[in-house]
């Protein structure tokens, strides 16, 4: 049975494509964007979010863990992820609510069943199902089967992708996809490497190829002050997509909502390097893009 690691199935999702949608968040991503607001989506393996600040070290989790994976030494609680089988007992029995298992293996049938629950809402709102992540297309076999089923049921499908996958995956899924939400994060390759951890070449090449075989691609541009909130970046992006079959752009201003998750994953959050772009700046970028005939929306 085909499975995928999914960390959230969000109902009444109204910012990831048209209408009322269910967004399936797949776990694992080839990129490591510095501002990522879902850092728990990067690793494809299960993880535990642990808020050490609010933990009282009561020791209940140590007792309930059937694998003896948790220990407290010198007032520090650690979990041995090699022993942990993510059964979730430590989360359930934590009165403080400081532990959360992220990621669960779903079978295709489970996901299909869950997303079909809201079918009546998709029908009434012209909504549907969006796959997001992480990067959903690292589970291309799973997503392809999922979308095949959804298209059999005549449900609108959207892929929210970083584009950082083999083109073959995009090509395979394009057949069953009504809408692509395609991220362009940085045009400057050096900066891309610096802030995202890899080259942007594959992403940009894939977009060119994809636009030749699919005619409904929306571009999503995260705008982060200190990273890419410059007219130069907007113009470069515009020049790049000029010849492509793309008309709609979403500008997504940076926010720091994901910050609290970084410490829970024991990750470093480089807060001082990023900030929210001003409203005026966002409007300015919007105006620039609109002057070239793009349909632009600030926000999802």
């Amino acid at each position, binding site marked *: 049975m085909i499975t995928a690691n999914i960390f959230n199935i*969000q*109902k*009444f*999702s*109204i*910012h*990831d494509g048209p*209408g*009322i949608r269910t967004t399936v968040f797949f776990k694992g991503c080839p990129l490591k964007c510095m501002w990522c607001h879902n850092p728990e989506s990067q690793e494809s393996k299960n993880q535990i979010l642990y808020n050490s600040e609010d933990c009282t070290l009561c020791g*209940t989790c140590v007792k309930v863990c059937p694998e003896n994976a948790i220990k407290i030494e010198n007032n520090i609680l650690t979990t041995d992820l090699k022993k942990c089988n993510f059964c979730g007992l430590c989360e*359930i*029995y*934590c*009165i403080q*609510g400081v532990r959360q298992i992220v990621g669960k293996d779903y079978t295709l049938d489970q996901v299909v069943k869950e997303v079909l*629950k*809201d079918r*009546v*809402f998709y*029908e*009434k*709102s012209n*909504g549907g199902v969006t796959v997001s992540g992480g990067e959903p297309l690292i589970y291309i076999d799973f997503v392809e089967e999922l979308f095949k089923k959804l298209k059999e049921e005549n449900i609108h499908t959207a892929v929210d992708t970083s584009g950082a996958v083999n083109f073959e995956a995009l090509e395979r899924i394009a057949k069953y996809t009504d809408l692509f939400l395609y991220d362009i994060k940085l045009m400057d390759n050096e900066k891309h490497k610096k802030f995202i951890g890899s080259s942007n070449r594959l992403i940009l090449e894939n977009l060119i190829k994809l636009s030749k075989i699919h005619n409904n691609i929306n571009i999503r541009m995260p705008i982060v002050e200190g990273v890419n909130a410059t007219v130069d970046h907007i113009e470069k992006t515009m020049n790049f997509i000029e010849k492509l079959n793309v008309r709609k752009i*979403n500008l*997504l*201003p940076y*926010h*720091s*909502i994901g*910050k*609290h998750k970084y410490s829970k994953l024991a990750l470093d959050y480089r807060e001082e390097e990023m900030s929210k772009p001003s409203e005026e700046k966002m409007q300015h970028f919007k105006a620039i893009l609109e002057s070239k005939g793009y349909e632009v929306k600030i*926000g*999802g």
Partner: protein
Amino acid sequence: MRGYTERTKKLRQVSVSTQPSVSLERALLETEFYKKHYGSVEMPVLRAMNFKNYMENRKLYIGEGELIVGEKSEGPQVVPTFPELCAHTVEDMTVMNDREHINFKVKEEDKKIQAEKILPYWQGKSTRDKILAAMSQEWKDCYQAGMFTEFMEQRAPGHTVADDKFYHKGFLDFKKEIEEEIEKLDFVNDFDAFDKKAQLQAMAIACDAIIIYGKRYADYARKLAEKERDQKRKEELLWIAANCDVVPAHKPETYAQALQMYWFVHIGVTTEVNTWDAFSPGKLDQYLYPFYKKELEEGTIDYGKARELMECLWIKFNNQPAPPKVGITLKESGTYTDFANINSGGINPYTGEDGVNDVSYIILDTMDEMRLLQPSSNVQISEKTPDEFLRRAVEISRKGWGQPAFYNTEELIQELLNAGKSLEDARFGGSSGCVETGCHGREAYVLTGYLNVPKIFELTLNNGFDKYTNKQISIKTGNPEDFTSYDQLREAFYKQLQHIIDIKIAGNHVIEKIFAKYMPSPFMSVLTTGCKESGKDYNAGGSKYNTRYIQIVGIGTITDCLAAVKYNVYDEKRFTMKELLAAIDSNFQGYEMIHNLVLNHTPKYGNDDDYADDIMVDIFTNVRDRIRGRKSACGATYQIDMLPTTCHVYFGSVMTASANGRLKEKPVTDGISPEKGADRRGPTAVIKSCAKMDHTSTGGTLLNQKFSPSSVAGEEGITNIAALIRAYFQMMGHHIQFNVIDRSTLIEAQKNPDEYKDLIVRVAGYSDHFNNLEKALQDEIIERTEQSFN
């Protein structure tokens, strides 16, 4: 200032800024009248003569600039009292006068009159005194314990809805029909002929009463016109007089007369007796449209005039605060709001086609402009309703003050058909009060009281013993610690449920007889199909259809309680019943682990999760089947409603903690909503869960949905809300209304995160649970919310 014209701006201002007060005019006239006539005539005749006496002798009021006339008492925001139902003590009057909120001013001299003239006469004679004297000890025990409430304790049946009769006929026509019925009486073969004659005579007198009231207004307006110096106002006063020459004696000829006709009828119904504070015009847009259309074609009206008159009617509703209660109910009740509820949209009752017309939009525009809590207004949405109308209604609703509410036409009709009504009558169906369904103008559907179902489970856990009153108030169904399976617990619960319902219904039978005997409503009987034909009163089962409702409260709480026990004690065996009972007894203090498990790690209603939802359906079905179809003392049929008004707060206040983690004295759930914080999968999951009960086998259900302003923003927001409504209604949901969360709620949520676990806010390009956000970000959202409202 709100108002479409200068006139309605001023009238609205008077309405909202006048201090509510109490007038003893009605009570004095009634007391004197009863002293003179009680015992000398049959009861229906006495009530009709009493009504006529009030209409003949009461003061009249025409306010500056008014176009529609008539008040329940001496002027705007003045309420009459109804000592024949329940008489206020002097202490009650002091409480209502002195308290900071929802106060009613009472003159010192009136307190004296109350003590010396009113109270001595009505002691022991009011229906309230009669009821309390007649109830059994077990009823009283349950009543004191808060197992149920009693609607007729302080008010009379009849917060119902008019149909189209009096737009086609005047009260002279009705009187003629009544006289014909008297002629037809067969004193040879019909042993009830004597009673029927008294009832019919009473109805004829009630017609006279309202005709006299209208005539007095015509005369009064003319008198004021004579003295009026302003030429324009003089003409208006003469125009009012001309309208009152026509209605209510004759059928209305114009749009304005139709409105005036309704308002006279409204005053008649709500002063004949206190019919639960209100009466409603029902499908007002359907009834007014022919008048509007005719005048539009003749060129005597336009949108502006029609709109101004509609606003005048709206203000009239708002001028009538609900009469204050007595005793403990007075102390606990915090509202001026009555239960008028206007239905717009839906279908044309004559043809079954889409009913949305120009007047429907005039009503929406009026509602939006007036923004008054009274009259409460709703729209009916049918599959035939155009999106334009739905979108306009959503646009008003999302402004966050809760109106209009949305009702499902197809479901309403199905409810009525399932309850045995004809399709023709069902098309005249709609809601009144809160959400209760009835065939307007053809049915006496009487709410009898709320049933505290979560507390029945509390009794089950305590073997029939009530910890609030410290008494064994119900049967013994066994010590739950001895139950070895969920089924045993479930059986015990349903035994308790049956027992409490039987006590409630036994009490209802007595109360129904008291009203049939002592409190006939001849004027209401004139308006209700069947009473003339049967020669029986509205309160004695005379209507074409007769229904008694019991309102079920707390389905969310009770579902989660049973789910918590089944899941944790019997399925997962996380703890024992003994431990759970100890935790409940301690209000979960010292039992934090059990509290955590039942609160956060147990299936709950409202998440489209069949584990909990199957339990909900089981409870719903069992409650319904123990009530629905039973017969009442006057031959009515029992049905259930799933609505709480504000009773869920009171019911919670008399309870210990619950098995689902709800703390002691906290409210139980409202309507069919999930428990606060239990629904964690968003509005679509809530709607799916709610749709799993069979709404069409009830007389109405109530669903509140919360949204943040930003999640309903823009054209997309309207589209999404409209889609939620259409989807819920396709699944045969009855009613939904939207609360858009304001700034103060967000601040509350920040302080008490546990109570707002389900609160979703739009953050930046996406939505998140408010609780998940850091304080600084929450602050930012709070600020932003403020902005988006201004």
